[in-house]
């Protein structure tokens, strides 16, 4: 008979065993994380260092250490608050519009009517159009004198609008285009959530005499709410990173009114060639984004606790 083998088991054997069980996830993650580490995480750490130097685009790795000077300059200047405000307006605007239209579109497409799948396909297409191509057609449509949008306005007896060169229309325009591209994603995901609403519950509430709107409010909405919430955070992240649409349409203008953080980073780093300052903007932006994400996660967790209690 084998002796009892609890504490007396040789150390080496125990190590091997724990390694066998503990190493599997490490082995699975090793590839992806080495890859991400090289491509993203290490460069990100570098950015922190670069933000403490006066590195220029012409000497990216040989900037001189200047401490927190870049941060002091950025935070004391008048440009950053405007950029942050723009970023907030753009982010909230695109997220809200994309969510509202996307959810409505999903509800409509979820009804049964002839041509339903064609409508769905048309509504979904903008998602597949590459951003650059999408921005270019909108650029043409927004043209003040030759654009089809102003032609439509004029046909309605309205004055044309300088969409891309006046406040606040430039911001309206970039939000509209970004939302146009984001709506299909929201719609498709919400549609999937709608499909999974238990039919009995919806029917039961209708039998109970709830009006259609009531069914939506009391049965359907709570069911898709987690999805919508997840979509909101995804959309916020997307808006924080969106670059190409603004870069093609307004380049941040007019009068900096569409100058979001991403555009400002690009300007600092590549137009002014101030890598250090660009990195500083990036780090400030990431910090804000992470704070918001953590806040979201904490709220989520608290909600979860409330629900399970």
């Amino acid at each position, binding site marked *: 008979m*084998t002796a009892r083998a609890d504490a007396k088991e040789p150390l080496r054997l125990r190590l091997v*065993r724990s390694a066998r069980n503990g190493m599997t996830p490490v082995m699975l993650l090793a590839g992806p994380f080495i890859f991400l580490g090289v491509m993203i995480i290490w460069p990100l750490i570098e950015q922190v260092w670069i933000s403490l130097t006066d590195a220029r685009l012409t000497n990216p790795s040989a900037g001189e250490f200047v401490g927190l000077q870049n941060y002091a300059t950025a935070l004391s200047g008048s440009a950053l608050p405007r950029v942050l405000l723009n970023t907030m307006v753009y982010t909230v605007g695109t997220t809200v519009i994309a969510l509202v239209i996307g959810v409505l579109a999903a509800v409509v497409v979820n009804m049964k009517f002839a041509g339903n799948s064609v409508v769905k396909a048309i509504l979904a297409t903008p998602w597949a159009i590459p951003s650059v191509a999408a921005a270019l057609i909108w650029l043409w449509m927004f043209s003040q004198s030759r654009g089809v949008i102003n032609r439509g306005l004029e046909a309605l007896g309205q004055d044309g609008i300088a969409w891309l060169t006046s406040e606040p229309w430039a911001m309206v325009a970039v939000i509209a285009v970004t939302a146009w591209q984001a709506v299909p994603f929201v719609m498709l995901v919400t549609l999937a959530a709608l499909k999974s609403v238990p039919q009995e519950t919806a029917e039961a509430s209708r039998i109970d005499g709830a009006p259609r709107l009531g069914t939506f409010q009391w049965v359907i909405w709570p069911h898709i709410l987690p999805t919508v919430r997840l979509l909101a955070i995804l959309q916020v992240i997307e808006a924080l990173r969106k670059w190409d649409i603004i870069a093609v349409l307004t380049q941040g203008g007019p009068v900096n009114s569409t100058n979001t953080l991403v555009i400002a980073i690009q300007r600092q780093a590549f137009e002014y060639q101030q890598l250090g300052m660009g990195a500083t903007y990036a780090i400030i932006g990431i910090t804000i984004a992470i704070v918001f994400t953590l806040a979201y996660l904490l709220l989520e967790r608290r909600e979860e606790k409330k629900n399970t209690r």
Partner: protein
Amino acid sequence: MPRITFDGISKSFGDTQVLDPFDADIADGEFLVLLGPSGCGKSTLLRMIAGLTDITSGTLLFDDVPVNHADVRKRDIAFVFQSYALYPQMTVRQNIAFPLLMDRMSGWQHLPILSTLIRARLMRDERVRSQVNGLAEQLGLTAYLDRRPGALSGGQRQRVALARSLVRDPSLYLLDEPLSNLDAKLRIQMRTDIAALHREVGKTFVYVTHDQIEAMTMATKIIVMDGGKIQQIGTPDDIYDRPANTTVARFVGSPPMNLVDLSSGDQQWRQSLRRSYGDGTVVGFRPENVRIVPSGAGIMPGTVETVERTGPESIVAITLDGHADSRTYARVPNDMTPSPAERVSLDIDMSSSSFFDSVTGERTELPVTA
């Protein structure tokens, strides 16, 4: 066909001990039931036998060979999950055949694409076909072979799960509450079927359940567990007639064994029982060992609360005098039932009663004097 030996087996997750160390020896061909309330660690123990969960300390032996670190796939077991764990994307036929295919495929044949082709070929193999078909017929699944699990009823799924575990003819069958998702009628039928199956194949079965009736009807040996502790290991009769402690006594039987704690209360009947059996004693007796006699004639006086007819007999709930917070049950023929609120007395066959220490709850053997 292994003999299973538990040598100081224990399990903890982090700092929480979920299973205290214990020793046991299960002979080959035994139908072992792990019985206990949910969360008692019985499923964990089953998974440890299967190799799905690590053993924290101690040694598990199959035929005296330690298998602590043997891979699941090397243990030659079948496992029926509570949820059946059928592969939803496969047909019933593919589900049942899956273990056969896996047994026949060698390492490189598992490579994607190649594996698809090889599996398709094996599915047409005559031996695989006949084995699957035979088993399907035996379990009444022939009509459903080309359906997917999603299109089957609970009972049918359960039989598919069983078929999948039987197809390889393993030496050890592990079943994790396989009947808990079935309705009452089906459950009784499957109970008989599984017991018959065990007799037929003659292999060792380990069966987890929280249902003591399943345990009593099917088992040749029962391990009663509660709170991460092994409470008792024994045959169904041992467990029923001689529960090792008050926990087992309370858990097994329906209604369970009546327990009357003599250590407190100053009624006259208590005092006289105390004199006979000691003052730190709990008396335990089965409801069928109680006779209801007119008030003043028996050992324990009380008042009838409810009478419940179960068909051939009735279950009478009685509140003993000075014992208001718990009921004592008697199983009596229908023609002998008293009416609610009637004052009665209980006469008990002390020779078939059990005695427990009122502090530890452990069984004590007392000479019967009354």
